[in-house]
């Protein structure tokens, strides 16, 4: 290995950032990993299963945490954001702002604090479908394994958790801190967010009962989700038997996201499959424009097309309205058979697209984004490297592949500096 010259700053602790950090550190380079949430894992930690194997994302994440824990080359900042980056490839200065978690690393996850906590908050891990206490563990497999407090929800003067904690782990007076770091290389891996489906007015999200987006669907399926893995719809907790999936909800649409989000077809096929596996009576309809299942994913698509209770309809959904008994009604064209379809279902899942986490956000001056918020390598003027879905819409496998390559680009910058 070339002589050690500088560190690599990786911004974002989801699957892409975690991968870049680990791959570079295992070569032997020093990495600073910054994650804005209290726990690593990002979006994938909220997925129930990956396509095409229907395997649990927590499995790969846990292997990565096992790689991370003993690796002294990686310094991890959670609850933290990089607020400024100045300089150029080989010599950057970055400022990391760390919000107080109010629980320190003496926490033993014993859970005594939640027994006494009087306040609740919406559970963002489950997209607000249930509540946690104001002091909470993000989820069972969260890493770092440490409780956090949503201080805004604490009643004035309440110290019940402090009194209950036998381990001196709670610091209600903790303050924000900032850390200045000097690094040779910066990797942006801040990921994606689901497109705000409420902006697609005709699809009824937010107005019509039981129209949800595809990321929420993952939590409804998860055994550790708000419904304990039973497919119950949000408005009345009725068991869901008949589901319509609406593809390109936002994607491939000049008014919303002009690009294809690359993953939504596979996500819906996966969700259709796990619903059918759990419930042999379930009926599924998927409204699509093109079914995009590249490479070996075609095998997966073929399996699902063979299920006679899954109907694929080529056609764009015109609108979704509320029918009787809180059932959404999907009105769509059927391009192959001609005419329109009117379908009443128990629940609609909008296959919402992937939006860059940086779209519409202010970003440090050192980072250039294209009109869709993606960090395109070709427009970087000063060597900032991007990895994963902040660079292009991608499935997990491609994001990991890209992040592995990004680790090498970062190393090259360190070596060259």
């Amino acid at each position, binding site marked *: 290995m*070339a002589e050690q010259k500088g560190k690599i700053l990786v911004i974002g602790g989801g699957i892409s950032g975690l991968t870049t950090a680990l*791959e570079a550190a*295992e*070569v*032997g380079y020093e990495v600073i990993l910054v994650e804005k949430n209290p726990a690593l894992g990002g979006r994938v930690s909220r997925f*129930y299963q*990956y396509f*095409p*194997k229907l*395997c*649990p994302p*927590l*499995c*790969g994440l846990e292997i*990565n945490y096992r*790689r991370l824990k*003993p690796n002294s080359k990686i310094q991890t900042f959670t609850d933290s954001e990089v607020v400024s980056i100045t300089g150029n490839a080989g010599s950057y200065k970055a400022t990391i702002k760390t919000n107080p978690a109010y629980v320190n690393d003496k926490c*033993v*996850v014993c*859970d005594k604090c939640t027994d006494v906590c009087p306040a609740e908050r919406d559970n963002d891990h489950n997209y607000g479908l249930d509540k946690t206490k104001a002091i909470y563990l993000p989820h*069972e*497999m969260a890493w770092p394994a440490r409780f956090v407090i949503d201080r805004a929800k604490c009643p004035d003067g309440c110290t019940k958790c402090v009194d209950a904690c*036998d381990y001196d782990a709670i610091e209600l007076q903790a303050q924000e801190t900032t850390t200045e770091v000097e690094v040779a290389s910066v990797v942006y891996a801040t990921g994606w967010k689901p497109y705000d489906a409420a902006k697609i007015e005709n699809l009824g999200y937010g107005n019509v009962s039981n129209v949800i987006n595809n990321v929420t669907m993952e939590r409804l399926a*998860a*055994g550790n989700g708000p419904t*304990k893995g039973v497919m119950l719809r949000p408005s009345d907790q009725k068991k869901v038997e008949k589901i319509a999936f609406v593809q390109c909800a936002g994607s491939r649409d000049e008014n919303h996201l002009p*690009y*294809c*989000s690359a993953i939504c077809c596979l996500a819906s096929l996966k969700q259709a499959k796990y619903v059918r596996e759990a419930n042999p009576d379930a009926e599924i309809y998927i409204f699509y424009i*093109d079914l995009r299942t*590249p*490479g*070996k*994913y*075609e*095998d997966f698509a*073929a399996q699902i097309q063979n299920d006679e209770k899954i109907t694929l309809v*080529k056609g764009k959904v015109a609108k979704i309205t509320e029918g009787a008994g809180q059932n959404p009604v999907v009105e769509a064209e059927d*391009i*192959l058979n*001609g005419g329109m379809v009117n379908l009443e279902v128990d629940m609609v899942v909008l296959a919402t697209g992937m939006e860059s986490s940086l779209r519409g956000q202010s970003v440090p001056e050192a980072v250039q984004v294209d009109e*869709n918020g*993606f960090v*395109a*390598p*070709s*427009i970087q003027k000063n060597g900032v490297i991007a990895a994963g879905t902040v660079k292009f*819409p*991608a499935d997990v*496998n491609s994001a990991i*592949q*890209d992040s*592995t*390559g990004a680790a*090498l*680009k970062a*190393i*090259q910058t360190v*070596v*060259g500096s």
Partner: protein
Amino acid sequence: MEKKIGVYICSGCDIDKAIDVEGLEKVATNEMKAAVCKTHPFLCSQAGLQVMKDDQNNEGVNSFVVAACSARYHQEDFDFGAESIVVRAGIREMVAWTLELRNEEGVVNEDTQMAGEDYIRMYVARIKGQNIPQPYLLESTDKSVLVVGGGVAGMTSALEAAKAGYDVNLVEKTDKLGGYAAGYKSMVPPQPPYLGVVPNYVADIVSEVEGNGNITVHTSSTIESIEGEPGDFTVKVEGSGAEFKSGAIVLAAGSVPYDVSKLTHLGSDLDNVITSAEFEAMAKSGAIKTKDGQSPKSVVFIQCAGSCDPDHLPYCSSTCCLTSLKQASYIREMDPEAKAYIVYKNMRTPGQYEDFYKSQQDDPGVFLTKGDVSAVKDESGKVAVDVDNTLLGQDIQIKADLVVLATGQVPVTINEDDSFLNLQYRQGPEMPELKYGYPDSHFVCFPYETRRTGIYAAGTVRQSMDVNAAKRDAAGAALKAIQCIEMTARGERVHPRSGDMTFMEPNLQRCTDCKRCTEECPFGAIDENEKGTPLPKSARCRACGTCMGACPERVISFDDYSIPMLSEMIKAIEIPEEEDEKPRVLAFICENDALPVLDQMALMRVRMNPYIRYIPLRCLGGNNLVFVSDALSVGIDGVMYLGCKHGDDYQCHFVKGSELCNERLGKVQETIGRLSLESERVQQYEVSMNDAGPEKLPKIIDDFMEELEDYGPNPFKGF
């Protein structure tokens, strides 16, 4: 090293609400003869850790049994340096948080207490069998990378590794670099704006490679042989005649178009029906012509020519839609009056390529329709293409001067007779295949992991992809190659046991040359001599222990993981008398997936069956059938194996471990038959990370317990 064992029990985290820790101390000191045993109310605190450090410094304790939380937590805190051994008896998770608590009078539950005491016995037994890992260090580690294939993927891998400071040997079988994409007229845009084709950039990569002093190019050359291990491969090249050392290898041998002669139903035998490769070559040469030399006024592109077709290539070739869109632009550029028709099943232009699709769609001379091509035939000098099921269900016919079949991508490795790596390995010369000629990998989370340590696939030999994706892919493979070199130089295993210093070590004096280890290693790490005696290549070892499980003579060990160690753990379990009606079940549990499920159950405080004792395995592949006879002969009533899914959609991180465990259990009757016991007493179950919660794992266990009741207690109890 003379071991001085200290047992440190944490009574915090409500452990003492379930367990009488004094009882545990008695087991540790009186029964298991630990030199030191201490209890602390907050063992992971600075004060708690100080107690242990003081004993290390003052009492000479060098072997620490931490009876506290599971190994998932505080791994870095319970570290007492390279000269000491630490084992983690996770009594918080396996006992205090998942079994019955003391009753209202504060009296401990007898079963809970027995479990706690057993884990003290088991982990003291374990630490007695563990040694400090002595790393496998090569005399010198070669840090150069060998790249096989001089196309875009191979050249990019070579350049990326070279730019990080590594020497590269790049071997290309033809007489020049560039590969398949060098023959393209233009390229699909690699970066924004994605609005039209861009000039071919392959020549730029070629000159960059040729100008890079770290890269040695061997053209008109193939690999004659590769032997050795990461950090020390010996490579012989046929052609250039060179022989050199390499530390790691990237296989980027690429793909070929699908054999079009098999597509006669699409008119492949007709004069004016050509492949996209032939069309590209014509366009590159500057003249797109029909057979009789005319400039075509109309061209039909038929998508999925072979791809997405169960009779040909069941997979999607990922690149043909983009290629046809690109080629449609050639016709339009050549002759503004000419028309291009693209007949597709699903237009696949993922991500930002959507803009490229739209830019072609906006051209009024490019017609796109979904449809199924039902016939392609000659018709008075033109080619007639019948298309069914187009939009609105109509059937149409398009008459064109030229038809282009968008043929799919086939990895060159599809033909088993062809050789690329010529590995001098006991398990064969090439990469084990998963499906369709593509190498096996742990798809999704760890795409570069292959079954040959230190050898990584990149580009279209790994999976179908377009040329821009192949460039990205190549960078990742180059990273894995240099990472393997550096980890090998430090004596560490690579993924997934990254950083582990142990490796398989056979005691050859007791080896019977049965070859099971050399055959079963999922990574082909063990060669053999003519007699069949194993010749381990330790830097290829991934430390899963599959060989240890395979060995009928039980002669394979790791420094801190061995059959005697696990057998002693089994024998340490106290077996109650039959009349106590307290069965005992041993559960071997995969530490990658199933064990963290137990951690989750503990956080949920799901109370589980108290008669089970868990022993983690690095992988179920480490299961040796001797464990079954050890367990049953001491009176354990049943043995469970809890691990990953196997089969096509396997989840095993060591690819074959859980499958091999299952195969071995198919032969368990031979072991059990000698004891006259029922084979149903031994079963393997799939447990995934999603199986936490009160419904799943507890039910698997309860059902097994119920089944055991039918067979009654193990008659060997008390022997």
